[in-house]
């Protein structure tokens, strides 16, 4: 591995291959190797890796310090099909409940077969109640009811599952915008987190996903799932760098405890180990 001392071109080309294979993408990778090229003077092996980590870290938007606590936090979970949203809603509810919060789940995926049943299993694992209607109900109506319930029951955290949707399907994106508006109108004093779930195995299409979701409904944070797979999830770093959105959590498995706060340094250590 010539990152550990070698001619500059060899080192840069090795880094290029490593980053592209981790799904950082051409654009972000060339930005990083360009910065490496400018700053690399010595050829000590430790300097290379540390410099590389610094360059990547400073380009990724890190989670800012928590806002002063509000009465209620709403977490709207969305993303394309199959990325792990429903599972993540269960994990997030479990995590918040463990922190002593009063949590409520909203089953706003009223489209997919057995989505509500799937979420009910997760809510039992998290020991959190669910506001739901039926398959075919209006998703906005479920969110509306969930907001009322959250206010009425003095809930600390409302976690909302939505149906998977492709970012290039305009009608589905408009439905999400509508859901977002209902949330904003019903809970104006709450901290409303719009969280995009990205599958770590996704390639450059993740950039298209993120920019469209950001355009339509706004993205406050990214949840990177399936980090336990053989994928490195570099696409989430590229999204974070390009759109200035922090990666807040990562999914690391299929059990209710498999959700971690995303730590950039731990992630970069894993990437370059």
């Amino acid at each position, binding site marked *: 591995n010539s990152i550990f001392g070698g001619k500059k071109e060899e080192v840069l080309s090795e880094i290029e*291959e490593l980053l*592209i*294979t*981790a*799904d950082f*993408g*051409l654009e972000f990778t060339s930005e990083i190797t360009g910065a490496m090229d400018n700053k690399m003077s010595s050829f000590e092996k430790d300097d290379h890796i540390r410099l590389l980590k610094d360059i990547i870290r400073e380009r990724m938007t890190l989670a800012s310090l928590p806002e002063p606590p509000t009465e209620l936090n709403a977490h709207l979970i969305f993303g*394309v*099909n*199959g*990325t*792990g949203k429903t599972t993540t809603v269960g994990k997030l509810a479990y995590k918040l409940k463990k922190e002593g919060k009063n949590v409520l789940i909203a089953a706003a995926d009223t489209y*997919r*077969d*057995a*989505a509500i*049943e*799937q979420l*009910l*299993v*997760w809510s039992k694992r998290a020991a959190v109640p669910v506001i739901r209607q039926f398959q075919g109900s209006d998703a906005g109506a479920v969110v509306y009811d969930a907001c009322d319930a959250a206010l009425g029951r003095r809930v600390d955290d409302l976690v909302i599952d939505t149906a998977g949707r*492709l*970012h*290039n*399907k305009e009608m589905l994106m408009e439905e999400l915008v509508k859901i977002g508006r209902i949330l904003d109108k019903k809970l104006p004093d709450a901290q409303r987190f719009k969280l995009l779930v990205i*599958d770590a*195995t*996704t*390639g*450059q*299409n*993740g950039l*298209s996903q993120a920019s469209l979701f950001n355009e339509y409904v706004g993205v406050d944070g990214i949840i990177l799932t*399936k980090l*336990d*797979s*053989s*994928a*490195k999830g570099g*696409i989430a770093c590229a999204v974070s760098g390009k759109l200035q959105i922090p990666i807040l959590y990562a999914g690391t498995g*299929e059990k209710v405890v498999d959700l971690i706060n995303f730590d950039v340094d731990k992630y970069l250590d894993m990437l370059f180990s």
Partner: protein
Amino acid sequence: SLSNRLSEIMKKVRGWGSLNEKNIRDGLRDIKLALLEADVNYKVVKGFIDGATESALGEQVLNSITPVQQFTKVVYDYLVKILGEEDHDLKISFGGISVFMLVGLQGSGKTTTAVKLAHYVQKNYNKKPLLIAADVYRPAAVKQLELLSEKNGFSIYKEDNGKPVDICLSGLKFARENSYQVLIIDTAGRLEIDEKMMNELIEMKNRMKPHEVILIADAATGQVAVSVAQGFNEKLGITGIFLSRMDSDARGGAALSMSYITGRYIKFIGTGEKIPDFEKFYPSRIASRILN
């Protein structure tokens, strides 16, 4: 899109007038970047460019009357060769019961595809399909398959308890006793690096002797497409690949990576969430989509 990028590159190539080694290498470098942007795997791109360079620098192209067309054709032909030249059909047994096993990563579209495949087989082969609910892990997986199947008029075989392999064997018995002709097994999503879960599939394959072991993969899969396809193929052996969510705006370079590394072909694609959203895969179409 990749084909837009490719036509831009070709416009530039046409501007060269004549071809020589330098501008062929330049043109291929641009194509390399376009392929990487389309999510084709880094090592696959390198192998592709090396192979295409060899053909492009051959006598035929350099001495051709229309060198640019020749060059374009070389790249396109090489792409289509890897993807399979013509469309590939399902291995259907015309006598006994055909068994299809659907495998893949979590969330890749297996359960939805299982019912799409049932619909396709019924409509195009006039064979009675039975779906087997072999995912005993994911919450409400059996319920999902059940609802989707019943809505579309298909029968499913499921058990409340039991190991996936045993459920499949009982399902086969049930199929024989009730004159079903095609068995479609929906398995749980799993990582190719999960030894225990991969061993479950190996046992299932050994005991069910499927006609097809189909890897279902998301069209938007990134660089890891190679490890995933290779992992499933080396441990289990796959007979074909289906790409789901081709209705997204993903370029689909994963298709090239997976075909290249396994030598298996993409047979069908999913083009939506509804059961009829399922089509045969034509290599020339994705070659254009990848290149643009």
